[in-house]
Every structure is written in C-alpha cells, then in structure tokens.
C-alpha cells in the first residue's frame, strides 16, 4: 500500500482482437505471467490483464482488454474498442481462414477507434513452422499496405511477444511526445497519472493519508 496505486505515469488501453482460437488469451498470459497456458479456457465476453512497463524511463501501466473471438460476441465486444490506444490484431499462421478475416477485423478497428490508435498485427504460433499456411512475406505486405506494425510471434515459446506489446507502447509514447495525442481526451486511450498523489497533492482526506503512510 505504501507505494500507492500510482507508481506509473501513464495508463495505455490495449485491445486484443482476432478470430477464435488464434491465441489471444495465451499471448496476454505470456505477456503478463511469462508463462504458456496449455489449455487456456476460451474467453466469454472480455478478460483483462495489466502490467507495468517502462518506456524512455517512464513507467506505463498497460490495461489490456482481451476479447472473445467468436463472431456472435462481436455485438458485445465492439463497444470495447472505444478509447483504445493500441490494438493487437492476431491471426494464426497455421490457419489461413484466420488471416483471410483480417480485413474485417481491421475495418472494425478503423471504424471504432481513433486515427492515432496504434495497430500491431501479430502472426501467432510461429513455433508451428511445419503446418504454416501463411507466409511471412504475404502478411508483411498486408501490414505495410495498411500501415500496421507487424511481427510473427509465439505465445508458446514467448518469441516476440514482449516485443509486440512494448513496440506498440513505444509508438504510442512517441505520439504523446510529438504532441499528436491529446491527453485530455478519453478517446485516445491514454491517461496521465500523478506520480505520487499522497505526496505531491494535498489530499482532502487526512485519515486515508495516514493509513496509507507506512514509513
């Protein structure tokens, strides 16, 4: 408790989207827990994960919304895109159909987020080379064409998982530094937090202040 809940400067909201079974929850789990979940329960509605990372010596809290992939959940999950600073769009390199659906996921993302939202395309299950159905080059071309960041990753081995989440954050932070992101708008998915509210600002509740101070 003593450090307070605000030992970070920013909160970035991410969403993870893509067809069912491409490994969205496993990527999130690998990123937050550094572990592979072999029999991961499928997501119904939405799940959440958080992790504090560091970009340019700034502590940033990632608030990650992991959505259900099945088509019929889109009626509900579409409302979660709003205010996302980053979108991780995932397909499975061993199932072409999940790649073919990307344009529909991209349309949703473009329509439901704002122009500054950073979109990272992830080709998951890169460890399953022998059953690959989508080549790296093909997906890379798609990403370039639509202005997306791109990497192939593996939630199983952890390869590139960290990089995808961090690269997205770096890109968002760059936008903040360049002044392209309005921190006062809730639409951008970025919130600024005071470093230590208990110390820098006078709290109007002296009682809670005392309780929080354990030094």
């Amino acid at each position, binding site marked *: 408790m003593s450090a307070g809940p605000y030992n970070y400067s920013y909160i970035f909201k991410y969403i993870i989207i893509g067809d069912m079974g491409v490994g969205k929850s496993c990527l999130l789990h690998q990123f937050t827990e550094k572990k592979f979940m072999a029999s991961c329960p499928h997501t*119904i509605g939405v799940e959440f994960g958080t992790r504090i990372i560091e970009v340019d010596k700034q502590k940033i809290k990632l608030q990650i919304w992991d959505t259900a992939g099945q088509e019929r959940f889109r009626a509900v999950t579409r409302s979660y895109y709003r205010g996302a600073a980053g979108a991780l769009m995932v397909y499975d390199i061993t199932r072409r159909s999940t790649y073919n659906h990307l344009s529909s996921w991209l349309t949703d993302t473009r329509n439901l987020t704002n122009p500054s939202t950073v979109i990272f395309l992830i080709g998951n299950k890169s460890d399953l080379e022998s059953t690959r159905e989508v080549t790296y080059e093909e997906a890379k071309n798609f990403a370039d064409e639509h202005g997306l960041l791109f990497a192939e990753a593996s939630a199983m081995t952890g390869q590139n998982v960290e990089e995808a989440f961090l690269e997205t954050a770096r890109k968002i932070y760059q936008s903040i530094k360049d002044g392209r992101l309005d921190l006062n708008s809730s639409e951008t998915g970025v919130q600024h937090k005071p470093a230590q509210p208990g110390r820098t600002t006078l709290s109007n509740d002296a009682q809670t202040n005392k309780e929080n101070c354990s030094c």
Partner: protein
Amino acid sequence: MAAAIMAASPTSNSSASSTSVSLLQRQSSKNADTVSVCSTSSSMCPDRHGFYGGNQFSEKPKKETLTREQIIAREKKWIHMTSHWAEYMNTNYKKVRERCRKGIPGAVRQKAWFLLTGANHLMGKFPEGYRQMLDQPGNPQIIDEIRKDQHRQFPHHEMFIDDDKPGQKELYNVLKAYSVYNPTVGYCQAQAPIAAFLLMQLPSEQAFWCFVAVCDKYLENYFTPGLEMLQRDAGMLNRLLKKTSPAAYRHLQKHNVDPLLYMTDWFLCAMTRTLPWDTLLRVWDCFLCEGVRIFFKVALVIIGATLGPQKVRAQCNGLCETLAVLRSPPKKFLEEDFIMHHIFRLNITIEDFHREHKKQEMLHRKAKLEQQKTQQQQNGGGSSSYGSGRNS
C-alpha cells in the same frame, strides 16, 4: 443446512449409481479427500467431484452438517417425489421448490435434474433423436469451432483431462447434435462448459436433452447471434442492484463499469466457470426449479458482498481495479453456505423482477425501432423516411 454430496466418481459411465450404493461412495469420496488435501495445484487423486487441480479443485473435504439418518430420509422423500413427479409438479410445486432449495441429495440429483428440466418429455418425444442427429454431417464451420473448443473445457477434470477419455468425445457429440437440433443457435462458445458440466452429472443422451432444455427454455435467446437477451438482462441486473446494494450500484456507475464486463461469463456459462463445485450444484438445483432468476440473485449477492465494504470500494478506485475484484471475488463469498443463505434473503420480490423485465423489454423495443429508423434513413435517403412515417 448443507446437503447433497456428489458421488465419488461422477463420470457418465458411473453416474448410473443407485441409491443403495450412494453412502458407500460417500465414504470413499471422503477418503479421497483426505489424500488430496496435501496438494494444491495438481493432485494425484481427484477430489470428490473428479477434479485433479485447477480453479475448481476442492481442497478441503466437505463439511457434512447432516446426519446419516437425515440424508437417508431426504433421499427417501426425493425417491417418492420423483416417482410421483407429475402429481407433485401439478399440485404441490411449492414443496418441490422448497426441497430443491434445501439441496437435492447427490444420489437422486441425476434423476431429479432430468425431471425438473422436462428432458424426460423431450427424450420421450424423440426417442431416436439423439442418435439421428449424431448421424447427420452438421454444418462444417460449426463442427470446426466445436473441435477447437472440445479440449478446453475443465481440462483438470477426470472426464476431460485427455482426448482418450470419453468426456471430450461425448462433449463433441452433445454440442454437434444440438447444432443440428437448433441451427438458429448453432454453437455458441459459452455453451461448451454447460454441456461439459451436464455430462459430469448425467449419461450423454440424458445430458443432451437436459442441455436442450437449458439452452432453449431456461436460457432462451441467450446464445443466438447478437446476444440480445444477455444485453437486456445486463440492464435488468443493474436496475435490481440499485435496489439491493445501492452503494455498490453507485460505485459501478461512478467508474463506468458496464454490467456486461463482469456478468457475461456468469450468465452465459450459467455460473459453471464462476462458482466452486459444491455451490454450483446447489445453485443449479434451484435454477432448474425456478429459472434464470436464481442467477440474478447469485450475481446480486456476489456484487453486494464484494463491493459492500466501504474500504473495498475506496481501494477499487477505477474500472480495472473494480473489475479485478468482481471477476475474482473473495472465496468466502462464493461458498455454498454463504450463497445459499443470502440468495433467498435479498430485498427483492418477484414483482420487482416482472417490473424490471417489462421496462427492459420496452427499452429494447424502443432501441430497436430507433435502429431500424436510422438504418432506413441510411439505406434509402428520402423515400425511406416516408416509409417510417407510415409505420408509425
């Protein structure tokens, strides 16, 4: 207070247990518990519900508050009731409800659930139905989706732990047969844990017809594309919460916590991924007798208890923090005694349910009309506005 213990090994093969062996099974299940107490994440022997580990694993043996005589007496009452079922349901439903609320003894639960759901009538009407549906090829896209999910349901349970166990095959069969039976719904991912849960209680054909009753009657329109009923019920839950726990309600409003963010899994999976097993069985005893209202009550109790203390609300100073607590509430609030005690002591009446239901229906109809209007306007420009004028 607490009643029904499940038989030691509730796989569908052994679930045909008769009353006479039930006490023996209880004995052996208790032995199994004493062994499994020492391990936490993954045990060498399953708990009394067949789990080797995972969230559902029951570490402690069940505290039996009933004497042996009481259990036998209850079993006898239930056996009498199940053999005079139509009579009881037609003339003395309150008695059935009261007994369901006390908990159905494990030894008769299978029979009771089969009757409560009316699955016996469905199976009587289509005696060859299940097999015929299995023989049909089914929709390839749905089949593909079911295949992807069949190994992901309760992977720590003895029936589903690997694909050479009968569970996964039976689960596939039930889900596939249902998608043939009701092609409008087809397959919704939230149905898989419900089907798996039923397969732990009943042999596959009976489980299938119970599943049909639950999906088409109890949770009607929950799984259809668009999930409209769920969205309506989310609104209803919120309104009821305002009455039962105003402080928790205000907190959720303040931090913009939409009910769909925490209740979707609870309602769509019929609590199977939320409650510990002993609680789940008791809640389902009531759900199958009284309907989805029971899930509302369970949800209201969980939210009220979790966000009740001012201290907790003060700590949950944002959307994420609040959801983190709601999505994994303190274990004590999910325990059988706690939930079963509180769900029947909420300050809401059946009239509250009816009133809120009507309100939500109206809101929904209004929203739909609005949507149609804007769609018409978008599609046909000027001419459509005449059309909508005529309709109104």
